[in-house]
């Protein structure tokens, strides 16, 4: 089996400026724009076959029979598998921390029950993709259908679960002089990364290599070895490049297990690429949420009570909870808080984390309610939030590691020109259009997880950084190269970062916006250890150039080891290593998680931001556009602002989609997501993206890591939809509490 590893750098790629905090383009950019980056579905192996699953065409019921006779006779077909003729899969054990996670826990073909439309009931394997698809279409499945439930209104029969509580929220609400009591709804949203989910599985004896579209290769291995029933070390997971994931590629899905099982059975490598339509059914989604939000406040705007009661839909078998109340307990100063949650089971695929899970739909509710409160009180929405700025995290009673929300709002207001706002509905006009302005605050948790990394300094002066994390497309290769360059003093063009392979030192998941915060301490430590090993080799051994010197008296700079007092004594890396007869100087480093660690016992760790939106509205057609956006983010120190800015811009564009366009709608008759394609599931286009002004406050977080860096993958989406619906209200007088905004509903305003 090939162990050839992908490099992050294209041959001949130009050297870019090396400075932390500079504007370094992604070092993997040339590979991507030239088509040389190998994505999972590009992987092609000798003798490889193609698998295409057969999706169920009912949403609830039982499989009565499967007739694959006609399918097996088609050209190129090698096999058709279903329950009974494919070696069964095991369930994996419950997760430990962030290892062993899977949302849809039932292995494919475990029983004859269908619980959602599109659930895989069989899989065809053939020599070409087309042949496999024709065979899958030719499999005849008979079902005994039961009534299904895809009802959008959410209700629960079980008691709500308490997520956070202090004081007496009900009593304080009842006696509050000013009350807001509204229900906010966010729809089912589908991640829809442009790169389709895919698996290529290749067995050699009882060892398997899985080429995966995975945001968490170590976790993928942890789950798959258990489900396949092989030793852990026999599973290798590879994911060199991702065409994004937005959380949908964090945990394994049924197609991956099927591809591995089928490849084992058929005795050849197998590629399985999930169709766009299936991606609306089988690889997770952000579940529909229904959130009743009550605020009690004084006439001075001081919050007295927050009561956040929310439900989310989940699948029949899996209890996926969308943590909508994540930010509610600590965002503002308020003595009485009650956050409760419940689930509503539906005949739909299992939900999963989607960019900013919990906080994004939760902040839509809370920040919309805050805007409604500001209007009820006739207080500027920024001033309302400023009056409720907490001195500490009032839920944990811990100080914030770094919180600059008020500054975010002040800077945003200046950039946006908020002082020129006329608060009356429909009062602001420009070029025959009505203009609306709205703002919202936001937050996202900051965390560090366990990570290991290795750094090698080779004789030719090049540095190789390795860790088994992956780059979703966000710039992980680049930021790790920057950190290694900073720690070794070796220029960026000589640094090669290798990720996306479980044979490398274990790295973290690419989720929660914590990969940067987690991996950089490991890489930076590993680099320092590698430099020290080089200095040690300079002083010890029979041919050492500085034999007998204390290595504290030596330095490593510009690729040479020299005495600190006399830089002219410099010996190049190659010579040091040659004299020591060493191939390379190596160092291992690690980071430890904040989860249950000292920092999380002492500090409340979060990023903050303020979002400002302008919409333009044409009353005759209800034509609505987001025409301007300002986002000010407090996410610690920015190591590489250019890709960080890309993250915020992309999230704002996604937030425009969340506010105005995106919703997967389930057909009541069949239980299928009816708009399961990119023509009918509407996402923002370039033409919908307004000028976006992104500012990073760049205050280092002294707690999270030595660079003071947090992550920025998710926070740009938080608060964005609430800022837009606030602007829509300002322009039209219509308060939209159920996303997405439909321009049809604005005409009556």
């Amino acid at each position, binding site marked *: 089996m090939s162990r050839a590893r992908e490099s992050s750098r294209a041959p001949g790629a130009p050297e870019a400026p090396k400075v932390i905090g500079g504007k370094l383009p992604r070092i993997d950019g040339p590979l991507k724009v030239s088509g040389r980056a190998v994505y999972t579905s590009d992987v092609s192996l000798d003798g490889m076959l193609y698998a295409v699953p057969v999706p169920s065409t009912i949403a609830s019921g039982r499989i009565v029979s499967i007739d694959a006779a006609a399918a097996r006779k088609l050209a190129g077909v090698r096999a058709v598998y279903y329950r009974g003729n494919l070696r069964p899969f095991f369930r994996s054990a419950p997760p430990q921390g962030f290892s062993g996670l899977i949302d849809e826990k039932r292995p494919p073909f475990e029983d004859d029950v269908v619980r959602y439309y599109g659930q895989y009931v069989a899989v065809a394997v053939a020599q*070409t993709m*087309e*042949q496999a*698809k*024709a065979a899958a*279409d*030719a499999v005849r499945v008979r079902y005994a259908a039961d009534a299904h439930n895809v009802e959008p209104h959410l209700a629960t029969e079980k008691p709500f679960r308490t997520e956070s509580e202090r004081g007496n929220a009900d009593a304080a609400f009842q006696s509050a002089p000013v009350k807001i009591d509204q229900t906010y709804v966010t729809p089912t949203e589908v991640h829809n990364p442009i790169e389709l989910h895919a698996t290529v599985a290749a067995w050699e004896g009882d060892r398997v290599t899985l080429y995966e579209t995975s945001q968490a290769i170590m976790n993928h291995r942890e789950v798959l070895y258990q489900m396949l029933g092989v030793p852990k070390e026999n599973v290798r997971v590879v994911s060199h490049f991702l065409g994004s994931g937005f959380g949908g590629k964090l945990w394994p899905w049924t197609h991956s297990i099927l591809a591995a099982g089928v490849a084992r059975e058929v005795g050849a490598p197998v590629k399985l690429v999930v169709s766009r339509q299936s991606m609306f059914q089988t690889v997770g989604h952000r579940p529909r949420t229904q959130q009743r939000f009550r605020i009690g406040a004084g006439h001075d705007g001081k919050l007295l009570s927050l009561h956040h009661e929310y439900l989310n839909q989940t699948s029949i078998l899996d209890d996926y909870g969308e943590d909508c109340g994540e930010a509610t307990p600590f965002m503002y100063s308020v003595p009485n808080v009650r956050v409760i949650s419940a689930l509503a089971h539906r005949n739909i695929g299992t939900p999963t984390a989607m960019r900013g899970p919990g906080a994004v739909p939760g902040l839509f509710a809370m920040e919309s309610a805050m805007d409604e409160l500001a209007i009820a009180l006739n207080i500027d929405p920024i001033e309302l939030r400023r009056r409720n700025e907490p001195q500490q995290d009032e839920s944990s009673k811990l100080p914030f590691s770094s919180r600059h929300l008020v500054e975010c709002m002040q800077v945003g207001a200046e950039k946006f020109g908020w002082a020129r706002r006329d608060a009356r509905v429909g009062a602001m006009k420009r070029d025959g259009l009505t203009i609306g302005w709205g703002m919202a605050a936001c937050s996202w948790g900051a965390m560090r997880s366990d990570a290991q990394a290795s750094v090698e300094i080779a004789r030719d002066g090049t540095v190789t950084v390795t860790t088994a994390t992956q780059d979703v497309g966000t710039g992980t290769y680049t930021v790790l190269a920057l950190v290694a360059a900073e720690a070794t003093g070796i220029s960026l063009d000589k640094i090669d970062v290798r990720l996306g392979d479980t044979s490398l030192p274990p790295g973290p998941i690419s989720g929660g916006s914590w990969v940067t915060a987690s991996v950089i301490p490991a890489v930076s430590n590993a680099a320092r250890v590698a430099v020290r090993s080089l200095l040690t080799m300079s002083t010890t051994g029979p041919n050492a150039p500085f034999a007998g010197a204390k290595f504290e008296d030596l330095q490593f700079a510009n690729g040479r080891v020299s005495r600190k007092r006399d830089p002219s004594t410099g010996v190049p890396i190659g010579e040091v290593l040659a004299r020591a007869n060493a191939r390379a100087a190596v160092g291992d480093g690690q980071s430890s998680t904040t989860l249950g660690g000292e920092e999380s016992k002492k500090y409340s760790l979060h990023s903050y931001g303020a979002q400002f939106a302008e919409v333009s509205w044409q009353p*005759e*057609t*209800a*034509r609505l*556009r987001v025409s301007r956006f300002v986002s000010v983010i407090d996410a610690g120190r920015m190591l590489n602002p250019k890709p960080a800015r890309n993250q915020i811009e992309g999230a704002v564009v996604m937030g425009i989609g969340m506010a*105005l*366009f995106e919703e997967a*709608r389930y057909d009541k008759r069949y239980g299928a997501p*009816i*708009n399961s394609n990119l*023509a*009918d599931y*509407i996402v*923002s*286009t*370039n*033409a*919908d993206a307004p000028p976006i002004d992104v500012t990073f406050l760049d205050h280092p977080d002294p707690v999270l890591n030595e660079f003071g860096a947090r992550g920025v993958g998710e926070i740009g989406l938080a608060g964005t939809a609430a800022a837009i619906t606030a602007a829509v209200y300002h322009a039209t007088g219509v308060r939209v509490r159920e996303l997405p905004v439909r*321009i*049809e509903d604005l*005409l009556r305003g």
Partner: protein
Amino acid sequence: MKSALSQLSFARPRTLEEALTLLRDEPLVPIAGATDLYVGLNFGTLKAQRFLDITRLEELRGISVTGDRLVIGAGTTYTTIMHSASVRAHWPILADAASQVGGVQIQNRGTLGGNVANASPAGDTLPVLAVADAILQLRSAQSQRAVPFNSFYTGYRQTVLRPDELIVSIELPMVEGKQWFRKVGTRAAQAISKLVMAAVRTEAPRIALGSVAPTPLRLRRTEAALAGGSSIEDAIGVLQTEITPIDDLRSSEAYRRAVAGNLLRRFWAS
């Protein structure tokens, strides 16, 4: 059941004569840009197995001015139409409509004849052809006939085109007066219309709407009301009796009725 593409076949004639002969002998489905056809294949709604590739037929391509008519080959792409000086000079709203179809890739492949033949009531260029009183030149191996665009559709996705005929060209008689076009979609680009309107301000105004009826609709009685001096509010009342919009995934009847009236008012005030 969806068709595997490998089970499909197509003929690739080099000339129009050859194409029409093939079409006479076998009911092939013509393919030009395939931008609608692929969607049908993928959704399993198009059952055909045998196709006629008409992309190599020079006779279907090109834009010319012949006498008082702008003549556009049925196989001319939206991109070509958008950039044509003749179209910009004589029927600028056709260039506008072409520039709002799909994305760049679709514009590079999709053809005007395809938009007509696909017969969707939401086709972006169709209200323009309706107000132009366009003439469709249809040919078969045996015959040639000219069919007014406004008589071409007989019902939802139904046309008078016979299985052995191809649309060869679309002729737009030139017109005096200000032309007007609006497309209303959910997003700013790559949107399927909630509503699309074309109009010409001449002595006898011409008005057509898409996505408000089973076929693209020329609003003859609304036009007559305006030509006869009715107030705009009365004309909007007439418009409401001419259109039959529905609630669907993309919009609602109420919205389409309200916006159709608002667009008429906007046009008349322009």
